[in-house]
């Protein structure tokens, strides 16, 4: 996922939908969405139990150990 994981001080580990992934330090929510290929998709994100409003995607900075849930609408009854 990340091009440079050799310097651990520049890397953060996030738990995304229950799976751990590494990203570079100073990754915003918007950057993460971009990097994961979700740009332009209808998704919603929860960070450590709190909703991340779409309006803050560009400004919220992710931190080591953050737990993210990224969800979509699917068929259901």
């Amino acid at each position, binding site marked *: 996922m990340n091009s440079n994981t050799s310097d651990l001080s520049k890397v953060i580990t996030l738990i995304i939908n229950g799976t751990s992934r590494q990203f570079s330090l100073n990754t915003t929510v918007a950057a993460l969405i971009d990097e994961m*290929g979700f740009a332009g998709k*209808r998704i919603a994100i929860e960070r450590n*139990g709190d909703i991340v409003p779409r309006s803050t995607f560009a400004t919220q900075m992710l931190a080591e150990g953050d737990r993210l849930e990224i969800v979509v609408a699917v*068929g259901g*009854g």
Partner: protein
Amino acid sequence: MNDKLIIAGKSYSSRLLVGTGKYKDFTETRAALDASGTEIVTVAIRRTNLGQNANEPNLLDAVPPSKFTYLPNTAGCYTAEDAVRTLRLARELLDGHSLVKLEVLGDPQSLYPNVIETIAAAKTLVAEGFQVMVYTSDDPIIAKQLEDIGCVAIMPLASLIGSGMGILNPWNLQLIMNRVSVPVIVDAGVGTASDAAIAMELGCAGVLMNTAIAGAQNPVLMASAMKKGVEAGREAYLAGRMPKKLYSASPSSPTTGIISSARN
């Protein structure tokens, strides 16, 4: 006939609410929804596949929220906390849309509602401004409590989710309708069109179903049948059925002027 279903102040022409799960593909989903005439469709909220195909079809494209009123559900949630988190995500996903279907399940075998967790979740959601349509047991006391909390529709099961067993306890549904003034919508258990008609004849405000349509051999044709079943049941309810006469017949034809081989 001006007979609208009114939920949380918004009126709907169709009294059939349809789930979007279990169809072969989104094309069939959409065809069934169109055949059913439904205006309100339930959807589930799930973790997105990481690294999913960017061109993967999206439910929101096949079933546009501009054409259908979305009712995000909490299917699969077994605690109030998970249900509340799921619906907060749904509200963010759907641009502030606050009409939701709350269901908190008790166990995976019966999918029977856990009413204690359901009540806890309903209180939180109503306080946060959600308009809560709530799946619950057919217990009239719980139904009334959920109304008092502020739920905008009470949705008792008619039989277990996905069972197709039909309306097993019309008496309890009637008890609920007798004491609740928000719409009572049968949610779960309907198997075929006559079940939907029975629910509507009882006076239910609507019927919500998924498997009865998606699980039919021909889902699109069954969707059409369900539309008619709901409409027929509703009209019969409004028309007011004839009283039942026990143990005695009443002829439909005149009782006089009958030719007779008797002398007179």
